[in-house]
Every structure is written in C-alpha cells, then in structure tokens.
C-alpha cells in the first residue's frame, strides 16, 4: 500500500480492525460448520475450504495490501497460481487416469 499521509493510515487502520473481526467470525463459523452434518462429507469439505478461502482473501487482500498492489506482483502471483494448479491438478489427473479407468 502506498499511503502517504497520516489520514490514509488511520483510515486503513479502521479497515484492519474490521478485517480482524471478520477473521474471528470466520474462525467461529468454520468450527461450528464442522460440527454440522451436511449429509455428504464433501459438502463439509467444500464449506470449510470456502470459508478458509474467504479468510485468506481478507488476509492477503488487506493485511498484505494485495487489493492495491502493483501489476508486477499480480503477475508473479498469477504465474505461481497457475503452476500450483498445474502441479496439483496434473498429479491428481495422472493418478485418476491411472487408478480409476478400468483396472488401472
């Protein structure tokens, strides 16, 4: 972030507090959600990961100022994201192709 003056910083500080509260709420919700049965365990996993992603978004976006970062850093993280998805996706794909098609 590129605040120059004290006013901006104070403004931002208030935002940080909101985010903080949201994160605490998120934590509570995750824990509660994990004790509720959504019928299928996959739904539980989905809900938990969704909440975690929201929290991650808040931390990365506000605490780490990603909301207002430079293009260069977006590019870097974008590339990293692609490779991460490739790593995870292709490994799972390879194993699925191997294990679940017929007898492989």
């Amino acid at each position, binding site marked *: 972030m590129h605040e120059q003056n004290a006013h901006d910083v104070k403004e931002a500080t208030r935002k940080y507090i909101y985010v903080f509260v949201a994160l605490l709420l998120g934590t509570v919700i995750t824990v509660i959600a994990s004790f509720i049965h959504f019928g299928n365990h996959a739904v539980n996993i989905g809900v938990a990961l969704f909440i975690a992603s929201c929290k991650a978004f808040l931390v990365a976006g506000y605490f780490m100022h990603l909301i207002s970062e430079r293009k*260069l850093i977006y590019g870097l993280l974008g*590339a*990293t994201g692609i*490779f991460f998805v*490739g*790593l995870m996706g*292709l*490994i799972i*794909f*390879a*194993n699925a*192709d*191997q294990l679940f*098609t017929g007898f*492989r």
Partner: protein
Amino acid sequence: MTGHNGAAAAAHAAHGAGGAAGHDDHHELGFLRKYVFSSDHKVIGVQYGLTALLFLFVGFVLIALMRWQLAYPGEPIPVFGRLLEAILGPEVAFKGIMSPDLYNSFGAMHGTIMVFLAVVPLAFGAFGNYVVPLQIGAPDMAFPRLNMASYWCYFLGGVLMFASFFIPGGAAKSGWTSYSPLATIADLAHHVDGQTFWLLGMVVLITSSLLGSVNFIATIIQLRAPGMGWMRMPFFVWAQLVTAFLLLLAFPPLEAAGLMQLMDNIAGTSFFLPSGLVVSGRPLEVSGGGSPLLWQHLFWFLGHPEVYVLILPAMGIVAEIIANNTRKPLFGYRSMVYASMAIGFLSFIVWAHHMYLTGMGTKISTFFQTTTMMISIPSVIILTSLFISLWGGSIRFNTPMLFALSFLPMFGIGGLTGLPLGFNATDIQLHDTYYVIGHFHYVVAPGTIFALLAGVYFWYPKVTGRRMNEFWGRVHWATSLVFMNLVFLPMFVQGLEGMSRRMYDGGATYAAQEGIHGLALAIKLNVGISHAAWLLGLAQIPFVINFFWSIRHGEKVVGDNPWEATTLDWATPTPPPHGNFASPPVVARGPYEYSFAGRKGDFTPQNQPA
C-alpha cells in the same frame, strides 16, 4: 591496474561520491571479508566458479572409476582401486574391486554432483553472479548479504554431500532420482545413512538456490541502469531471468518432497511407502498407505525444469559469444526472448514424460507427450536463430567461439534424440537405456559444459585482466570435442540394442547366449567408451594448467574491452572494482549493435550516447 584505459581512468578520477564510498569500503576490508565472506557479487561469482569446477572434477573422477567397472566388470581398478579400499574400506572395494553398492553410490553421486553442485552453480551461480549485474549496469546484486548466504548454503550442501561418502554405509545409492521405496530401504542397516545426508544436502542446496533466484529476479527487475529497457537486455540476462524463475517455482516442491522422504527415512513415516511391502521375505513394519508415484511426480516437477536450468544459461553464454564473434546482431533476438519464456512456461507441464512407463493411461500421457513436443519448438527456434546468426557474419575463430560453435551441433544432437524419448510409444523401447544417457549427456556435457568453458575463456580477461593461452585453448577444444563424441555417440547404439543404464556389470548379464538374443555390440563398445572418457579427462589438463598459469602469466589485455563487445560488462574497469562502474552507466541502445552501416568501427557499446 593495467586494464584501465585512459578514458576510464579519467572517469574514475572524476566520478561521483557514491562510487568513491564504494571504493573506500573496498580498501578497508580485511582479507576474510574481501575474499571469503565477501558480499561483492564478483567475489561470490568467482567463489561459486572455483567450487563448482572442483565439483566438476569430483563428478568426473567418480564416473572415471565407474567406467572401469563398466569396461572390465569385476576386475580390480588399477592403482585407484587400492586407494579406494584404503579410504572407503574393504567392504566396498575389496582388493580394489568396486562393489555393486559402491557403483550405485558413485552413480547417484555423479548425477547429483554434476547437476546440483557443478553445472548449475557454474552456470547460474558463477556466470550469473558475475555477469548479470555488470550487463544490466548495476553496482551489485539487490541483496548482497543474501547472495553471500546463498554461496555458503551451497558450500554447506556440497560438504554434506561429499561427507556422505565417508559415513557408515556410504553415500546415497538410489540414483540421482532417489525413487522411493528404494531410497528408504536401500540401507536398512543404518538409521542415518547416505540418503539422509543426500536429503539434508538437497534441502540446503535448495535453500541456496532459492536465495539466489530471489536475488537474481529482484536485481534484474529493480537494478537495471537507466535506459536498459526489457528489450535492450542482452540475451544472457534474459536466459538467467527465466532460469531464476524456474528455480524459484520448481524447486520448492522438491524441497517438500525431500522433507517427506526425510521423514520416511528417519521418522518412520510412509509418505512414499505403500501398504503391504515385503522386504527380504518379511513384511515391512510401517504404517503404509503412501504413494511411490507421488515422489516421482514431485521429483520430476523439479527435474524437468532443472534440465532447462542447465541449458538456458548455456544458451545465453553462447548467444553472447556468437554475436560478439560474428560481429553482427543476433538473428531474431526478440523471438529468442519469447522462445526462452515459452520454454520456461512449458517446462512446468512436461515432467511426466519421465514417467510414461509407470502405468500411465492414454489421456494423461497424450497430454504430456503433446506438451513435450511443444517444448521442442522453442528450443528449435533458439537453436535455429543461433545457426542463422552466422549467416553474413565475419566470423572470428578464437577459443571461446570454437567452444560456443561446437555447442550448437552438440546440443542439436542431444535435443533431437530427445524426440524419440518424447514419443511415449518409442520410449517403451528406449526408457532407461543408454539412449537416454546419450541423449542427456549430449545436452549437458558437450552441450552445456562446452558453453561454460566458452564462458570461462570469454570472461577470463574481465575477471583477471589477462587472457588464457590461445594455443592450449585450441588444443583443449579439439581434443575435448573428439573425445566427447567418442564417449557419447556409441551410447545411442548401446541403447537401441537394449542396454539398460545403471548396470553394475555394463550389461554382461544380458550378453547374447546360445539361442538367446542379447547384448553383443554394446558390451564391446563399453571398452571404447571408457577409454575415450579417460582421455577426455586427460584432455582437461591443458585447461587446468592454462587456467591457473594465466592468472599470473597470461597475456595482459589492453583496454577494458578486449573482444570489442557492446554489452555493459565490458564498459567497466578491468577487473571491475567494488561497485563496478566508474560512473553510473546510461544505456542508449540495444545489446548487439555490431557492424551497423555508417558507424565508426564495427561495434557500438550500449552506453554510447545516441
């Protein structure tokens, strides 16, 4: 210093305050801070270079001993055999005969040392460190102390790897690929074994290259001199930038895998051990449930990008030297830059072509072989551009150029033989044979090593102020070229005939027998290859002597720019002082303005004002 020509000396006297400060620091430092724990990118580059050359030599010694066993299986190694017995003990070298375990240790360590301790540190650590800041007009790396930490991590990793030869049980012996479960159960007698050292060493080495790559990328992004736009960067810098990204993003998964294998080896976990293992007739007491293929995926996720880490800096060096010695711009500079980015991107999604025979289904293997074929195209583009760059030139055949030129067909042969490996159907026959060994050695040995040697001859005058002897350089080149080919060309024949790699007896078990087709030619070729390999070693003697002799006795260079080059590395005093430039350079033009019509002389340095 003699290297300073008049203009530079004048500029030196008149330069700004910043430069003076840098220079003064330099004088205050004691020996230790100046040469050992230095944070100057040039000193670190030289440290990397010397250490890496030493490991190159170690890697060669290992293979030279193994080649005896391949040529004359079961016979005692003359002279060195007794030495091995004395140093490593009779269990592994009884009466000078190499044991299978020792052969496997040497094989694994040859691969590991060559790749991670010799070639990458030389190409990336040494040349990258020394040349990149000079070529972009920076006073140093962005994070000098991180740079020092990177070197010392590398050094520590090297020490760990080297020390592992001397621990009970010997060094890692499961190939440089360390496939589980073998890596975990190869040495059940020792809890802390060679593999543990290998893994710890790798974790340290990975840390080193992460520090290095963060530093390189930040430096290239942030410290380019005024006017040094992206498309004005020498191709070498581009190659290093892409390399740094490969290291940055491909290495961490191997670090993760290394930690998991370390847990398997010392904490008894089963990340890579499936349920139901029966070792030596006994069920193995582990929890099981792991996946051996997971290790392979994580290893090759690094392993494949790693091979481009080996080749891209080499291509960068060759491009610099070719532009300089043909006295003309590179053909298709921009397409080369884009091609190197394409290689960088694609190299992350081809890894499983090393795993075709692990039981891959049609869909996924089609995906990976398609990407493998796609990645060959940018390589073809770079190589083609370099070939075509020769056309219309005024070619000077000095030693660096001879090595750089030889790189082209050697890499060509290595790259082309990657194609039958890349088609999964033909890989059925060639996988894990000497065809693979031939393929990649053509790329890394006569390919990359030649490029690196070219770089040594080329930048030697900048580092020392003296040239290496030209005559002995040529002798070194000619003999190396001949013997390299004699070593590696027959390997394709061996591979096609069906000789597997990592064979302790050179395939003698599979010799042809009455009524059974088997290896015939391959076993004969082993002897010839081994002799060529030893001669190849001897052929380095002129180089080693030349290298050390020239530091003091080489012909002094006149001026800072002995090759009449255009890039900024030659715009510094020789050798460059702390802080590099006498005055901050300003870039006014592209990297290779050679022989432009209507210019005085046949080259225009990048910092010459428009």
